[in-house]
């Protein structure tokens, strides 16, 4: 008897729950709540009415989704007109309401959504053409921070040694994707360099360099923004880095050096770097190097690449490099401009 009573209750309650959810998450405003729900059974004056109660839930719901977007795209939201970001968020909300179980993944389609809107938005709002890329990059950072990581792919000093003596990497040039920037290369490479120095057969130089073409682009960032040509291609070039790990000048005074040159990056991407809550570790950088060494230039999409690398890296401890160690590299890159 009790069982059938509960079963009947469940069926009725399921419908009541569906109706309430619909009133909260639907993109169309439901003007009246179903009769299952009431604001209060009391007759207190000025108590909450159904209209206000539904408004609280709808505001909570949409507020949570908006916060999720702001949390995932702090840089993009700061570097575009607030009205433009608001319009994009509103449109995205309408298209996406109620369809993500985990609120953390609500922003997952925002970058492609914005990219699809760029054609009609950029003229009216003056949005940069690379906004879609920037959003993808930020989403990748978010995923990389929260994604699971696996320990078995770490690059140990021994592995590093094997790589360094293989010969194949001397003066090798690898075209890195712009997403690589968020790995905070300066800190990562300092540690990498230190480990290499401690190897029995040290490789005494870790060199990152950039092509003259990239220098040129770094001097004229506005050309990129307003360029009418193959923008995506230009962006790849603009943000790529060349890395060489070699033993040039071994033993000579001052030859052990770490040269970093990552400044052909748009200021917006620097903002991404600055906004990162974490420093990434040697292990992450090492696995990244390994990936790049293994897969040569097979880098396409910023977000996918970053997620594929970072989601497989291990991070057990955090290291911090003193500001004194970071600052010279920042100064160097600034003076290059």
């Amino acid at each position, binding site marked *: 008897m*009790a069982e059938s*009573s*509960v079963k*009947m*209750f*469940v*069926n*009725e*309650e*399921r419908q*009541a*729950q*569906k109706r*309430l*959810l*619909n009133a*909260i*998450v639907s993109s169309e405003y439901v003007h009246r*709540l179903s*009769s*299952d*729900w*009431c*604001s*209060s*059974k*009391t007759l*207190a*004056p*000025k*108590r*909450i*009415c*159904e209209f*206000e*109660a*539904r408004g*609280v*839930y709808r505001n*909570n*719901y949409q507020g*949570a*989704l908006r916060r999720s977007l702001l949390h995932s795209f702090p840089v993009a939201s700061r570097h575009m007109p607030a009205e433009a970001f608001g319009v994009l968020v509103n449109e995205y909300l309408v298209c996406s309401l*109620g*369809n*993500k*179980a985990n*609120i953390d993944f609500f922003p997952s389609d925002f970058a492609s959504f914005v990219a699809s809107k760029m054609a009609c938005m950029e003229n009216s709002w003056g949005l940069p053409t690379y906004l879609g890329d920037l959003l993808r990059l930020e989403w990748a950072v978010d995923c990389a*921070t*929260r*994604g*699971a*990581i*696996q320990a078995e792919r770490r690059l140990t000093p021994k592995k590093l040694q094997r790589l360094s003596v293989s010969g194949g990497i001397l003066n090798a040039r690898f075209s890195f994707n712009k997403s690589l920037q968020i790995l905070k290369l300066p800190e990562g490479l300092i540690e990498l360099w230190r480990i290499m120095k401690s190897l029995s057969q040290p490789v005494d130089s870790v060199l990152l360099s950039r092509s003259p073409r990239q220098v040129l682009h770094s001097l004229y960032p506005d050309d990129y923004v307003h360029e009418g040509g193959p923008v995506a291609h230009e962006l790849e070039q603009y943000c790529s880095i060349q890395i060489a790990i070699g033993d040039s000048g071994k033993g000579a005074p001052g030859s052990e050096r770490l040269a970093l040159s990552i400044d052909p990056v748009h200021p917006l991407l620097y903002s991404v770097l600055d906004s990162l*809550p*974490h420093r990434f570790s040697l292990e992450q950088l090492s696995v990244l190097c390994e990936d790049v060494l293994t897969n040569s230039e097979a880098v396409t999409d910023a977000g996918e690449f970053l997620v594929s690398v970072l989601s497989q890296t291990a*991070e*057990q*401890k*955090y290291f911090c490099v003193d500001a004194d160690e970071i600052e010279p590299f920042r100064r160097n890159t600034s003076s290059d401009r």
Partner: protein
Amino acid sequence: MDELIERDIQLPWMEVLADNFLCVDNLHFYRAEPLFASCPLSLHCIGMNLGAMEPLDESYLQSVKQLADRLDVQQISDHACFHSLEGAHSHDLLPVAYHPDNIRYIAERADCVQTFLGRPFCVENISTYLFHRQSILSEGQFLAGLAELSGCGILLDVNNLYVNGLNAHNDEDAALDYALQQIAELKSEQVWQIHIAGHQRTRWGAIDHHGAALHKDVLYLLAEAIRLLGKKPVLLEWDNNIPPLRRVLEELNTVEQTLTDFACLQGEAL
């Protein structure tokens, strides 16, 4: 969080919001891990969907169990509510009917959860702005019935009771009476934890936003709850408009002082 770690502040216990750490092998988790190791933990969830008229999400429970085992938490909790159904998600805690059939329904699910997790499990009362027309029990009767039938505990949120009272009566005295009536329905052994938080008063009632200092009535309710139910672990929630850590710690001191003063008064009265 960073400041707590850096200053090595010792707390008697702490609640971890499970839904923020369901992946235990990511940067976010490792960053918080030193804090997790600093004191006893309770795990608080918002995703079990205990009151929803659909099957429990096994993968979610598996993730919670993994996290609970990793952190070796002492208790786990979630709410007497629903948040989603058939793919539609409100990302909020929505009310259920206070009805005997619903006690049976939710108690069975809470029991399943407790068995699966293998740790003490308690259910928290929510704040609400809507009421189910099928509710024929009071909030307190519903919670007490749930605890009795499931063997789970109650995580009593006195601020939620007060907010519900305000949303039903829009009067502070009436809200206080409402909350006290609900507390009176509970037995000491059923209540395992107490939550307190700030709310925002509106012209029609209150919003439970966890973004302000504690209201004096909430502090009074806490003291009354402890007088009636005995000493319980108390947690201060401050999730929005979070002030500097110093201010949060001051608020904790206020709570402690209030309870001490209240105990002294009781002693004198006795």
